[in-house]
Structure formats: structure tokens, C-alpha cells
């Protein structure tokens, strides 16, 4: 769904055919190598929902490129996805950042806060089960358990730090833009 919405975002930004959309999405996310054919299932799913339509419905095969345009329903669906928080820790925010436009930044800033809050909730859940004190002489199990717990939390720390950086950069962008008027 997130990938589909990201493809939709690019179509709204500028109508295009599958291969070009794949190129553009690869340019938005470092290390991503989506092929032209991988974009088509997303476009077909969007078409079935009525969120995009082919510019020339008769063009099917051959060298004729099929350009996709967004529909009003598609624009509405995309805005709703961008403006409303997705379930936290699922990776939607990553795609939203990739296809964001300037006016979407305030909503995304708010979503980084909610995502960070979800990380803190998860950490607090782990604190309720912190286990006993580490005794280096005793059995390894409690020490191993604690180390794993600390590793899980370290991953959450990385996520929190990344969210903080994203938020700070978005806020800086907004400030600079508002200064320029």
C-alpha cells in the first residue's frame, strides 16, 4: 500500500509511464532499484481503485508508452494518506518523506512525533520487564536476555535519532522558506 501510494504521489506530481516512474522513485530513495515492470502492478491496482487512468485506454502493447494520469479520487486518497498518521513503526513514513511536497511538511513533522512516541511506548513496555540484576558469575541466560533487550532498545534508539533528524530538517526547511516569504 505504501509503495502504491508513493507511485501515486509521483503520478500526481507529473503524469508518466511506468519506466519513468521507476526511475523517479529510484532517485528518491538511496539504494532502491525498482524495475519498470515492478511499478506496473502498483499502477494496475491504482487503476482498479479508480485513482489513476490511462491517457490512451486503447494503448496496450508495443512501443506506445502508456502514460498514467491521476483522478480526483486519486488526489483525494493521496492527500488523506499523507495528512493522516499511518500505523506507527510500519515504514509508511519512509515513503511519505520520499514523495513529500513542501506543503505536506507540517503534517509529516507531526507524524514523526507520533512515530517517536510509539518508539518510547515500546521502550517503556520493555522497561516493565527489565529482568533481574546481571550477575556475571551466575548462569548466562539472564545476562543474554538483558543483552538482547538492550539490542532491541538500541534499534529503537537508532529509529528515534533518525526521526529527530528528519523532524529537525523539515522544521529548518519551513523556517528558511518562511524567512524568504
Amino acid at each position, binding site marked *: 500500500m505504501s509503495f502504491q501510494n508513493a507511485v501515486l504521489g509521483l503520478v500526481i506530481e507529473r503524469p508518466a509511464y511506468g519506466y519513468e516512474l521507476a526511475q523517479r522513485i529510484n532517485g528518491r530513495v538511496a539504494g532502491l532499484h525498482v524495475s519498470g515492470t515492478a511499478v506496473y502492478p502498483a499502477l494496475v491496482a491504482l487503476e482498479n481503485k479508480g485513482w489513476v487512468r490511462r491517457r490512451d485506454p486503447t494503448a496496450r502493447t508495443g512501443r506506445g508508452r502508456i502514460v498514467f494520469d491521476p483522478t480526483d479520487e486519486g488526489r483525494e486518497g493521496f492527500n488523506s494518506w499523507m495528512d493522516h498518521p499511518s500505523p506507527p513503526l510500519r515504514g509508511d513514513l519512509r515513503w511519505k518523506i520520499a514523495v513529500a511536497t513542501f506543503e505536506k511538511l507540517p503534517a509529516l513533522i507531526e507524524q514523526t*512525533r507520533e512515530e*517517536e*512516541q510509539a518508539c*518510547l511506548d515500546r521502550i517503556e513496555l520493555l*522497561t516493565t520487564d527489565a529482568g533481574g*540484576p*546481571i550477575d556475571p558469575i551466575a548462569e548466562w541466560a539472564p545476562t543474554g536476555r538483558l543483552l538482547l533487550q538492550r539490542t532491541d532498545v538500541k534499534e529503537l*534508539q537508532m529509529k528515534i*535519532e533518525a526521526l529527530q533528524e528528519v523532524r529537525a530538517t523539515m522544521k529548518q526547511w519551513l523556517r528558511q522558506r518562511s524567512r524568504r516569504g
Partner: protein
Amino acid sequence: MTRPLLSLDRVSKSCWRGRHEILVLDEVSFELNAGEFTSIFGQRASGKTTLLRIAAGIEPCDSGSIVFDGEDLTRRARRRGASLHPRIGWMRREGPFLPSMDMLEYVALPLLGPLSYDDAHRLATRALRRIGADELARARWSELSDAERALVMIAQAIVREPALLIADDPTMGLGTIEREEALRHLREIAEQTGMAVLMAVPEVPDMLRSHTVMSLSDGELIRSTRRRSRADVIEFPRERGESA
């Protein structure tokens, strides 16, 4: 509903770096209850120490208010050379300035003056015993490991039996096992004595012993939504000083 021990309401603070004004704290609000161990995570230069100093009433804020145990710390902090409130303990990181001082004398230091030498030493012994470090009483700072130094500093911070203990990165330089030990003591202090503990850390795993976690960045404080009531986190709270 019980009154929170510490309450920060829309506290803001900015500072100048060259020609740029940096908003260190942007309308930060939170409450801390007796017996609660709260951690704040923040990366380097995120404003953690400033927040702790403002919460302790030793650094003024630009706007907002700080109320500790019903007392307004906001104005107190604006006084020149504001000292730490007698019911707030601050965990130091530096050792004694006199190398010959033993750890009992060092832990007793904050009490000398208001109390007699004997009484100060009696309470210092009790503080060391509370964290299981009474065997360090006659040791010199130079003889201690980093973990033992952390225990001594906890003992010194709680020797006046404060209602609130503030610790700024108390596990700095410690290994995993030593960190666990120090953090376990802080949690036990909160749960067994009813003292509130407010700690800032640059590493999230150090928050694992806390009851409540928050994060600070770009002036914003974010709290978990799962904030539990004191009754949920403290099984058998005792009155301060009862176990001593």
C-alpha cells in the same frame, strides 16, 4: 488526585551561538511524582543538561514555570548564584578535590555545616549502606573503579535524603554490567524511599530501568503515551527515611 512533586509548565530557553539564536527548550512541560524514576533521552547538545539545571532551579528559564513540592523555583533560579534547593540532590561526576579524603568524608561533605561531624558521618554511612557500598567508606577516590565511583556519587547525591534526585548521564564511562548496577540502584532508591529520580542519558538502553521515558530534541520534549500511574509502578512505597 495527588500533587506532582515537580512540575514544569511551558518552559522555554534559548541561547546564542554566534549570531544565531538557538531555541534549546520550546515550551517543555512535564510532571514528576514522588517515587517515580523518569529518564530523558537526548543526543549530544540536545539541551538535556540545560533542562535538568532548570528543573533543579539552578538555571533560569526565559519563560514558563517550575514548581517543586509546592514551591516556585522559577524566581529562585533568577537570583544571582542560585544554589540547589535543599530537598533536591544532584549527582556529581567529579571526585573530591582533596585526594586524601576518604569516601565517607566525601559522601558526608554536603552535610557538613548544617550537621555535626558525627551526625554527617552517620548519615553518610547510611547512604553508602543503602546502595551496598559501605565497604568503600575508607577507600580513596584514586583506588576506586569507575563503577565504584558511580556508587559513591549516588550515595553523595542521596545523603541529604532529597525528595528529588537529578542525575546527568550517571553511567558515562561504565560497561554494561556496571551500568546495570548503577541504574538498578537508582530504581531501588525511587521505589524504596519514595524519592523521585530524574535522569538524562545519551543512550536509550540506559532507560530500561525507568518507569517513564521521554526524549528531547530540537527543543521538543516527547513523552510516551503509556505513562503509568505511580500505583502501577511502585509495589510497596515506604515513607522517606523509614528504612534507614
